[in-house]
């Protein structure tokens, strides 16, 4: 009897057993590999997007201490031109309906926007005491998303064209009841203290233009605001000009210059002068040059100086968008002004969205 054949049964059984184990293991490994690869790809894409956005921030930060203005002639725009998948936009040189003084806002709306473009008449603000709106603790009030926040008043295309939520609250021109709300939000102090703060601040309205260099000292020494409160309020509240002349729409500049309270008389002269300045030139306007152009043929007094709390030469908020394949990154960075004389301005990332 030949018994050697029986070993082939064992071999076959072992082969089947090993095959089953290997199939199971390979399936398991493959599944894990796919998951791992997916994660790795996601991380790599995120890193790539962030690296590209960081390059823009690095270029913007290069000479931040010495720079005299942010203009379309800066080196960062060459980089943007060479990289069409990256977009850079000044998002602060527009009107912020959250904190503009209502009479000025109504003036700007009337001069810039056709009434039929408005969803609701802005005189609503005059017919209803606006302080009631701001004093109501249930009012959301300061909106980061203008749509749906201001959908009641403006169509979406108007909001997009002229308005922004990304501006600092300027101590010289912010609507007083918004200042009060901001004080309560940031310090957590009582409404009475906030009201006291509001009353202190409005003492300077119409009398003094506070510059960023004197912001801390002036608020503390002249208005009696505590150092602790100033440190908490800054940088959301500061004294840097809100918009950058180099990037703001001309309609807004014209609207500001025609505001009755400023009493400008040679508006076209100023606008032409600014436009002519840029013609054939490859540099921006310094603050002194801006002031001399705006104030052409008018005496330099406070009423005219107040416009420089709205118009300056630096961009406070930039939006950076990076688009690689179908993945997208959006950053909003803020130029943080120094509080003390020894500090330097710097950029801080304040918003980040992936895959919009």
């Amino acid at each position, binding site marked *: 009897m030949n018994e050697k054949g029986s070993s082939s049964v064992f071999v076959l059984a072992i082969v089947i057993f090993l095959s089953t184990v290997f199939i199971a293991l390979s399936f398991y490994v493959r599944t894990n590999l796919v998951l791992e690869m997916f994660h790795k790809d996601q991380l790599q894409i995120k890193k790539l997007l962030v690296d590209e956005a960081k390059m823009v921030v690095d270029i913007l930060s290069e000479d931040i201490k010495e720079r005299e203005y942010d203009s379309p002639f800066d080196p960062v725009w060459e980089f943007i031109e060479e990289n*069409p998948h990256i977009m850079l936009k000044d998002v602060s040189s527009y009107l912020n309906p959250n904190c503009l003084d209502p009479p000025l806002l109504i003036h700007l709306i009337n001069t810039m926007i056709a009434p039929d473009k408005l969803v609701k008449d802005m005189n609503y603000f005059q017919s209803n005491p606006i302080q009631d709106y701001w004093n109501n603790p249930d009012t959301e009030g300061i909106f980061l998303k203008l749509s*749906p926040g201001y959908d009641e008043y403006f169509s*979406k295309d108007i909001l997009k064209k002229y308005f922004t*939520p990304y501006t600092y609250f300027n101590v010289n021109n912010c609507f007083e009841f918004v200042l009060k709300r901001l004080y309560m939000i940031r310090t957590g102090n009582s409404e009475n203290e906030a009201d006291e703060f509001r009353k202190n601040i409005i003492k300077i309205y119409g009398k003094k233009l506070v510059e960023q260099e004197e912001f801390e000292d002036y608020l503390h020494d002249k208005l009696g605001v505590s150092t602790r409160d100033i440190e*908490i309020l800054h940088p959301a509240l500061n004294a840097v000009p809100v918009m950058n002349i180099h990037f703001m729409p001309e309609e807004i500049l014209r609207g500001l210059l025609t505001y009755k309270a400023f009493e400008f008389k040679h508006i076209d002269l100023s606008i032409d002068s600014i436009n002519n300045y840029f013609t054939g030139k490859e540099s921006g306007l310094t603050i002194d040059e801006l002031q001399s152009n705006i104030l052409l043929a008018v005496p330099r007094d406070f009423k005219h100086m107040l416009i420089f709390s709205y118009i300056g030469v630096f961009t406070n908020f930039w939006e950076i968008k990076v688009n690689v394949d179908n993945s997208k990154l959006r950053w909003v960075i803020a130029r943080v002004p120094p509080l003390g004389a020894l500090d330097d301005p710097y950029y801080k*990332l304040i918003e980040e969205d992936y895959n*919009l």
Partner: protein
Amino acid sequence: MNLKNSPELNCHKGDKGFTFIEVIVSVVIISIISFSLWLGFNTSIRLLFVIPEVTEKSNKLLTLNNIFQNGLERITIPFWISEYDEVPEYELEEDRAVLPYFDGIMKRFLVLEFVEQYFTINTYFLDDTGNLIQDFGEPTPEPTSEPTPDASSPDDNAPIIAPPFPDDNDIVLNPINYEAGPFYDIGIEEITTKEEGFIGLKLYILPEQYDYEEIIFYGRIGSAPFWKEE
């Protein structure tokens, strides 16, 4: 009949049958091999059934991680806020978190909740009477019948243009409504750093009662406001 002369039983020397010991040893060997084979087959067959189950669980956890991270990224706290825990309606407990400023809107919330072994991530909004209402979104509009541009003959020589950046105003703010489970236990914890303040949430998950190690997910919010320095 003389059995001694029978050809079947007439064994020569060397043609003897297996001894009792040999039979026992071979039976033992065959038993061991058969048992190992049976054990192996059984394990591998069970593995084949367990793997889809494990894969499904992994996928479920991966999906939960993605939705958790994406949901938190949509929490956009405005730069002027100094303390998040002072924002009205903000709530953080061990098994529940209510986060305002979902998509940058103060009265829109992301609510994370672990109830009866199920973990939910939902979007809510505050109605005029101050009640939290779950947001199921608006029904999708019917597609229009406008003709689409002919893309059948692309120009090969055309320059490659990066796809357009999305228009913020066109973004549909889709709500999140997601449920995952069952899990044995889930805990939620705030993540804060000295440099950046509140930056997000940590999610501890114990999928099964007898799991030795909990799974931890990290989610970062989509903004970094000017927090009050302590």
